[in-house]
């Protein structure tokens, strides 16, 4: 049904809405996809008619998180500019506030997936996708279509089914104020009297670094031991705030001298007087690797362009720029960081992480048990 026909059929009441670009009507039955939509944002009107056999024109729609794109100096902005200089297809980023959950829900309810590629997926989220959609395919096999996928470091591969491919990684570590405390160095020391009331962590249920830190403790103490360790941390007056930003703000405000953060902290704080206050501390010489991956939506009508863009993201130049702009490490073996940057970005001697198989079926329960333990104290 065409937009115009629809307008005449629904009468005066809805015209106000539809012309303002706020009411969408699309055909949901049958195999042929006839879509008509109006977009208020930029005033464009797209109408797609016909089957899905050919690559459709229109932009490559990349769903990601909010701080990845849009402004000068972001990884997304660099990617868009560099890609569009060489390709005819425009890149359009969106940031669903609900992250990958949005697409899980859409798939569950049979609603159109309005994106081609998802950028910014971590292992736990991939597990959640599969646990919530046991009989549906949200992402398809991308690795086979990406020529340089073999460059990705083996230690970072998060998906046994090769749908999600890492494009960068961060290492969760402690950041501490060296003018106030020494590096705890070990998990045991962190839970000892010397560090009483010093640590700020994040809610593992809702925060990425928070979950990574929890997983790190599970990696260290095992499924049967991590709750006991957290008991000692709680006795030692750890504070668990809701996300990285408030925790880091509190650290900056001098509230507490140790915060769970990233090992790239000094990239921001490399002034002579800043470095002592922004020391990176690994525990037991480890750091928890939290790779960020992209994956292609199975429903995309531009599988080839999406794969080309994925390949482009794994080129050495893109890897360098993503890493620098996103303050992370490259995911491939071939890419290197600029010297200046590498000086301030620390890699743990022993990166640790949980694989997909280790997390599957567990991560939800681990997190819930942890949260109940913290909240009931």
């Amino acid at each position, binding site marked *: *049904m065409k937009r115009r026909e629809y307008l005449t059929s629904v009468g005066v009441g809805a015209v106000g*809405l539809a012309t*303002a670009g*706020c*009411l*969408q*009507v*699309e*055909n*949901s039955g*049958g195999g042929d996809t006839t879509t008509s939509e109006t977009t*208020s*944002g*930029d005033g464009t009107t797209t109408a797609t008619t016909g089957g899905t056999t050919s690559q459709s024109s229109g932009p490559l729609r990349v769903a990601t998180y*909010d*701080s990845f794109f*849009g*402004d*000068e*100096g*972001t990884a997304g902005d660099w990617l868009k500019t560099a890609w569009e200089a060489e390709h005819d297809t425009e890149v359009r980023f*969106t940031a*669903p*506030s*609900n992250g990958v*959950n*949005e697409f*899980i*829900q*859409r798939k569950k*309810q049979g*609603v159109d997936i309005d994106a081609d590629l998802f950028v910014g997926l971590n292992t736990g989220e991939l597990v*959640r996708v599969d646990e919530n959609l046991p009989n549906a395919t949200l992402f398809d096999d991308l690795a086979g279509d990406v020529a340089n996928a073999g460059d990705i470091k083996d230690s970072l591969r998060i998906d046994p089914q090769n749908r999600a491919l890492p494009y960068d990684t961060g290492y969760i570590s402690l950041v501490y104020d060296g003018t106030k405390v020494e590096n705890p160095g070990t998990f045991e020391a962190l839970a000892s009297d010397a560090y009483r*009331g010093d640590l700020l962590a994040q*809610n593992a*249920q*809702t925060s990425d670094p928070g979950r990574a830190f929890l997983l790190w403790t599970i990696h260290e103490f095992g499924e049967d031991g991590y709750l006991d360790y957290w008991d000692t941390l*709680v006795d030692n007056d750890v*504070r*668990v*705030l*809701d996300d990285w*930003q*408030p925790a880091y*703000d*509190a650290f*900056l*405000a*001098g*509230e507490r001298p140790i915060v769970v953060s990233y090992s790239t902290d000094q990239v*921001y704080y490399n002034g002579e007087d800043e470095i002592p206050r922004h020391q990176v501390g690994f525990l037991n010489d480890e750091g928890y690797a939290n790779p960020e991956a992209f994956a292609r939506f199975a429903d995309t009508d531009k599988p080839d362009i999406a794969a080309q863009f994925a390949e482009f993201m794994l080129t050495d130049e893109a890897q360098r720029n993503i890493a620098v702009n996103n303050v992370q490490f490259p995911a491939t073996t071939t890419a290197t960081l600029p010297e200046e940057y590498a000086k301030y970005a620390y890699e743990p001697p022993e990166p640790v992480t949980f694989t997909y198989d280790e997390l599957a079926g567990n991560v*939800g329960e681990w*997190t*819930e048990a942890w*949260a*109940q333990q*913290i*909240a*009931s*104290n």
Partner: protein
Amino acid sequence: MDRSVGTTDSEQLTRLAERAALPLAGVGTLAVLLVVFYYPVWTVFENALGSVARPFQPVREVLESEFYMGAAHGLFAHPARVPGDVLAWLTSVRVGFGWNWTGVVLGDPLTWPRALPDAWVVYPEVRKGLFGFTAWQAALSTVASVALGLPGAYVLARFEFPGRRTLKSLTILPFVLPSIMVVVGFVATFGQFGTVNDLLAWLGFGRVQMLYTLEIVVLAHAFYNAPLVTRMVGTAWENVDASAVETARSLGANPLRAFRDVVAPQLVPALAASALLTFIFTFMTFPIVLALGGLQLATVEVWLYARVQQLDYQTAAALATLETVFSLALMYVYLRYEGRRAAGGTNNPLSRHRLFDADTAREWLVRGGVAVYGVVVAVVFLAPLASMVLASFGGAVDPTLRWWEFILERQSGGRTQPATAVWNSLKFGVGALAVALPMGVVVAAFSARGGRGRKVVDAVLMAPIAVSGIVVGFGMLQSLVFGVELGGLRISIVGPVVVVFAHAVAGYPFVVRNVAPMLSSVDRRLVESARSLGASRGRALWDVELPLVWPGVLAGAAFAFAISIGEFDATVLLAEGGSTYTMPVALERYLVDRTAGPSVGPAAAMGTVLLAVTAASFVVIDYVGGEYRP
């Protein structure tokens, strides 16, 4: 058409339309609520139903869990054992009483208090559970809000001073401030190296850890809700009829007695109503708890949000159901109280004293008390806001215009442009006002009519206050944005319209709450005269009642606008696409702006803009509205 259309017929038609206006508006309001509130919320709640074989299984699981219900879980898990458990608990309580002379030196009076009789109670701890803790912190928050808000009502109602009206309009301001920003302000004020601790250290006291305690969470709740108490009680106080007090005085009552017998009874309903609203709000609190208290002080709403994040809709729905039942019950109690509120305007209010003018020692004493209160208000309300403004200029130590320049740069070429955010916020605010005001007045008109079961209907219509914002946001996302399938077509509402409706639904209960009580206290004879002279019900409402309750309409409008400006949770979920961001959304984006590094500077600058824009709008609403006062 076989009728001739003449002047008489068209007059008849007009009258018909007039007569149908109010019922039609009622049906329209209900339709809007069904589409943008009840249906979306239902899509979340139905997860709590469980299967046919095991109905309400998710709810029962929550009720029977010790983690959620604490000691009360026994009531549901094994009711037969409850009396025994209670008895066992009671028998293990030890009450002691005695003297302890150790440390008392007869020659040293300073040690004598130690010789006072000492009583102690030892009892095994009762687990509160998540619900119990949530109710406990809400009760404390309510007490704090009343304690902080009540003196304000007294000052605003009984004293005259320059800027009194402006100050009164600004009492609504905390409602619009996004909690992320308030948290930054609170950390800067009450933190280990915050203003208050700096002052304590300077005075020679040690630094005190105030963050991450229940006390600071309660104080932050008072920041948000004390102004509500001030506003509601203050209005009631201003409406006290001075002649009643004069009569009491002429009959020989002393001022205290006159206050107790005449004024207080008129304040108590407003006080109780504002306290109940505060309790409901703080029961459903979320970001403040996490940010200032941490997960250790988690509330039901915190858990609800986390369950939604994990896509565990069954538990989330069960929590939401229990939470809503509880707050709707409270809402019902609130509405009963409100019925007793005599909120009608009086033409003869109590005269105000001039604040900066006192003769007797007693008057000086009272003003001294007001001054102390002023200091407390400055610390609790002004300091966090001032800290935010200061942070936008880089703080006191290292002043810089960097963040304001940053914001300006964003204006000339960034994804989140401050001016667009301001413009969107104002646009959505006006849109939400345009929807919420008529809806609220219509509901108020029906509500004021009375009749059997009215309070129950009222409570249901007030549901947007009682339902968690997280549930509303996700419900709307699932049903409206994802769309509903109708006859092979999928119809969805996206973009600005759904945001405006979401804001309107959140705001209209405040219009109802401000208008309904005044409407029900309008002299019925005026309406009846209008009706007997031929006016329809709608016409009488428009021509007679509304002008009489205009202050209430205006207050409701201010609230609806404020709620829209400050709304964050639903907006960020619903405003798809890049261009429908509001000021709070922009603020949040600046907070995590990677190109600025981890600094609150840009967000603080945006927060300052938000503060300025909204403060200005309220003062404008209040002054423009003032001219219409009957």
